[in-house]
């Protein structure tokens, strides 16, 4: 399709599309519209380094505004898109303005899930998605530190655990309340959950499972404790809620694009409208077997972004590589590749106690995913093994003296 190209959402995926269009030698107009006031920035450090070191905001930049300007990418910040007019090929802005497109890319990201609980609106209760959220959490952690007040984290997923680890490093007493029976249960096997739980416990973080929250209690409008359905009270100087996100497909679905918990795209990032592509957290990818795959990751934003840019230029660049993710907690480096759902066998490699091991997930004898805890070489080899559809034998996996990378060179 022909330009001008308009990209709604100035995060990782949006910036990638703009840059890839230029790399693919498209020289026409590109407008990159962001709802936030900040220039495009990296989100992964927000739960970790950013809270720990409080670096200047500019150091989080994906691309600085000047760099985008040099490539003649028209960055419009603090700009809310309220509708897509598919007949007129325009997006409608909150100020009533309209921007015409020849091709449109939606990179609208995801929104935090919230807790439908009494007290959820109290001051001192946070979710983490944006720089502004992180600045607020940083200030609240400072308050916890100076008042010797504990942090309560609701949700034992990646974001919650990363914030717990960061706050613990800062010297704050931390309790994590998880609704299910183990950490990160949606993504990793029990053996991995247990290893990560041991690391948190060793750092003095309190972990409670199968907790049903009844309410957040407040004093003078600010949160002071979390009360469980069982009647227990956990005092809190602040509360971070990390219970996941919902893809932001509101614009797309209002415009009649096919959506199902995300904007449905094919492997080339194309939506049900031939003039519209989508990439990143807001999408649900239809795979060749018909199933929908939702990924929330930097890799997905970048790779779908590249696919989306190609699609805007009428080319096909399918994204089919094995998905990978990471999480840093204390000195533990958790790296995951592949999708482990439906595994029927796990083979481990390394030291479970330390922990420094990898869990290799197999289904019907075929390798489908690998979770590595402080086992970087295993992770990097696993990315390639999975991309090539290769499965080492159980004996090769378990034998640390065997170099799994040698299979790739054979």
């Amino acid at each position, binding site marked *: 399709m022909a330009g001008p190209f308009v990209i709604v959402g100035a995060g990782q995926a949006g910036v990638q599309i703009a840059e890839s269009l230029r790399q693919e030698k498209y020289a026409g107009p590109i407008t990159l519209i962001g709802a936030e006031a900040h220039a495009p920035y990296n989100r992964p450090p927000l739960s970790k380094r950013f809270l720990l070191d409080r670096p200047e905001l500019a150091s989080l930049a994906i691309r*600085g505004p000047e760099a985008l300007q040099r490539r003649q990418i028209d960055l419009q910040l603090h700009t809310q898109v309220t509708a897509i007019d598919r007949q007129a090929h325009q997006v409608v802005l909150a100020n009533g303005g309209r921007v015409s497109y020849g091709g449109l890319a939606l990179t609208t990201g995801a929104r935090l899930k919230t807790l439908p609980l009494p007290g959820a609106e109290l001051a001192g209760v946070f979710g983490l998605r944006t720089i502004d959220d992180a600045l607020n959490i940083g200030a609240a952690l400072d308050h916890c530190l100076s008042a010797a007040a504990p942090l309560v984290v609701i949700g034992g997923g990646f974001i919650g655990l990363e914030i717990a680890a960061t706050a613990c490093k800062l010297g704050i007493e931390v309790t994590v309340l998880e609704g299910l029976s183990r950490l990160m249960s949606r993504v990793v096997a029990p053996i991995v959950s247990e290893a990560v739980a041991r690391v948190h416990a060793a750092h003095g973080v309190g972990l409670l499972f199968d907790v049903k929250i009844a309410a957040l209690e407040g004093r003078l409008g600010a949160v002071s404790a979390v009360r469980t359905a069982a009647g227990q009270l956990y005092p809190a100087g602040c509360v971070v809620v990390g219970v996941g996100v919902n893809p932001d497909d509101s614009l797309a679905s209002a415009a009649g694009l096919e959506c199902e918990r995300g904007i449905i795209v094919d492997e080339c990032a194309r939506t049900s409208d031939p003039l519209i592509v989508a990439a990143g957290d807001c999408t649900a990818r239809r795979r060749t077997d018909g199933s929908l795959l939702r990924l929330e990751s930097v890799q997905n934003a970048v790779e779908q972004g590249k696919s989306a840019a190609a699609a805007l230029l009428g080319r096909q660049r399918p994204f089919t590589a094995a998905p990978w993710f990471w999480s840093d907690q204390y000195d533990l*480096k958790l790296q995951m590749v592949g999708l482990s759902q439906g595994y029927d066998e796990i083979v481990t490699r390394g030291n479970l106690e330390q922990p420094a091991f990898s869990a290799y997930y197999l289904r019907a004898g075929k390798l489908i995913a690998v979770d590595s805890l402080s086992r970087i070489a295993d992770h990097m080899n696993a990315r390639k093994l999975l991309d090539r559809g290769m499965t080492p034998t159980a004996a090769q996996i378990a034998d640390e003296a065997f170099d799994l990378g040698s299979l790739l060179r054979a």
Partner: protein
Amino acid sequence: MPGALQVNCIEPDGQRVRVQISDGWSLMQGARAQGVQGIDAECGGACSCATGHCYVAADWLARLPPPAVNATQMLLNVAAERRAGSRLGCQIRITAELDGLVVEFPERQV
């Protein structure tokens, strides 16, 4: 930019770009923010994603501390050729000793 140091970046197509990077920033943060081509993304300098593979020019290598084991392992199986100067840009902290550093970025990251 106050306290900025010069780094000479060679983009995948051979174009040389001189960028200013603040003292104490990582090579990755500075080069990426200023739009140097050849960098996909970043994990926040945590050495977790392997998308910051770059080649440090031979005459500068001796001024860098040796790469940590973590960083060396992250460079296993990266898409572009491994060379003596292969490093992860997020693990190179720009200081006065590295003012004028020359570094090249490969065509593909992962």
